[in-house]
């Protein structure tokens, strides 16, 4: 199997009956897609179920697959739709709606270098753990955009396409997500810095 083959080529090969092509495609995307669901659903068994459903849809839709966009965009469109479906069926889920206020002062913090680079391994781990916790506190829509960005590597335009919003809305949600995460991490770092200065 040509490991340099593009995702789209692999999917076309799978459409033609090449199961090895699917295996390579799966290997490339399984981790990111799995984490996309793990970060957005509880308990873990639900993430596994949604994850499997998406791949089942990929398998079933193979005969209709055509290269109209990046494979990632298609894959995460399936994932987004399955997630929304899950939210709608789950009474406890938060609705996928978020009012973004462009005048929110939190956005002013974005360019600041208020998060110190970790000095050592322990501090690095602590920062990472705090980041994951902060991610859980984000509104659904902002968290999803952040995950699409960091896990799937989609551009803002592709994220807008996957989630059915316009480019500006996608950009706004990501800016909010980044600003809130940075605020949380900065708040975490501040007391420790203060202790060191004492």
């Amino acid at each position, binding site marked *: 199997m040509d490991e340099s083959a593009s995702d789209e080529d692999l999917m076309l090969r799978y459409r033609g*009956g090449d*199961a090895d092509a699917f295996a390579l495609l799966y290997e490339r995307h399984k*981790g990111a897609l799995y984490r996309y669901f793990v970060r957005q659903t509880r308990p873990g068994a639900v993430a596994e179920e949604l*994850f499997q459903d998406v791949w089942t849809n990929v398998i*079933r839709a*193979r005969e209709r697959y055509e290269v109209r966009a990046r494979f990632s965009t298609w894959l995460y469109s399936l994932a987004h739709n399955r997630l929304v479906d899950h939210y709608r069926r789950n009474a406890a889920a938060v609705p996928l709606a978020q009012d973004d206020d462009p005048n929110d002062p939190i956005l002013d913090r*974005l360019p600041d270098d208020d998060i110190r680079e970790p000095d050592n391994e322990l501090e690095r781990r602590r920062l990472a753990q705090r980041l*994951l916790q902060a991610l859980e506190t984000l509104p659904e829509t902002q968290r999803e955009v952040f995950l699409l960005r960091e896990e799937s590597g989609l551009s803002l335009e592709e994220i807008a396409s996957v989630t059915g919003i316009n480019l500006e809305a996608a950009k706004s949600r990501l800016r909010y997500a980044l600003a809130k*995460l940075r605020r949380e991490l900065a708040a975490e770092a501040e007391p420790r810095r203060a202790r060191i200065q004492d």
Partner: protein
Amino acid sequence: MAKRKSTRDTRTDLLPGEEQLAHAYRDTAREAPPAALDAKILAQAKQAVATTVSRSNFSKRWAVPVSIAALMVLSLSVVLQVSQREVPDTYEAAPAVATAPTPQPAAPEPARKEKAQPPSETKPALTDKAHSTGSASRGPAVAQAPEMRAAGAAANDERAREAAGAPAATARSKGATDQTMTMKQLSADVTAPESQLLLNDKADVISVRVSGQPGGYEFLVGVRSPDSGCPQYADWWEIVGIDGALIYRNVLPHSHADEQPFTRAGGPVAIQPDTVVWVRAHMSNSGYGGAVFRGSIEKGFSRAPLTPDFAATLAKQPPRPPACQH
């Protein structure tokens, strides 16, 4: 641990302050699906394309003979249906299959409001996979046999429906009716009022669709269950041989209280086209006892009576669901 491979090196639209967070995130988020899930999905993918190749070969060899046979059966069924309309009410259904385990008294049969479909519109269970998925994919080669059988049997359906709606309908005639159910009718069951489907607090199997090839079939099983959360939920569906041996079990790790009815795929199931099996579901609190399907790949699946204590000890066999999480 090795660093994760970045998938975003080509992006040019980074926002201010994004790179530092992205680096921290990628450095720590490394969860991966369980190996068992990997294996399941890869087997499913492999099975799907093997089925396509098999179906393609079958189509080339059998397209013409099957078309001729189907035409003959359809013609015959129309004749039968016309003649059956003239039969008086003393009609008695054919006996149920002799190998069925001790049948329990027939469960109340749903009132069938749908008018009987003409034979030409009936669809076999095995070819109706796209019904739930919206997929354009078609069923496997083996689906041809039940289609012909279903068409031939459809002549009895209208009368069987009338019998099913009557209180005096016997278990014997019900068994015969179930044996001749077509997929069209099974799909209709899904949309019937819940009160007519649920057998008290049990989990009912309401549809069975199959694809694949001998030794590795994928089952798509529809379940309706009175899930309310961890204390009461359908925790698996399974395929059991007529000898009571567990052939395959699809474990459901959590309640589907907000998704009723639901359909879950499982497999590969290592049976042959003529292997007769039961398809049943299990409740976490009340065990077996809901509506069950019986049949084989080559003859199709239909609802059939089964005593709740049939192979009840299987409930203690692995695989069993993990601790319910919600």
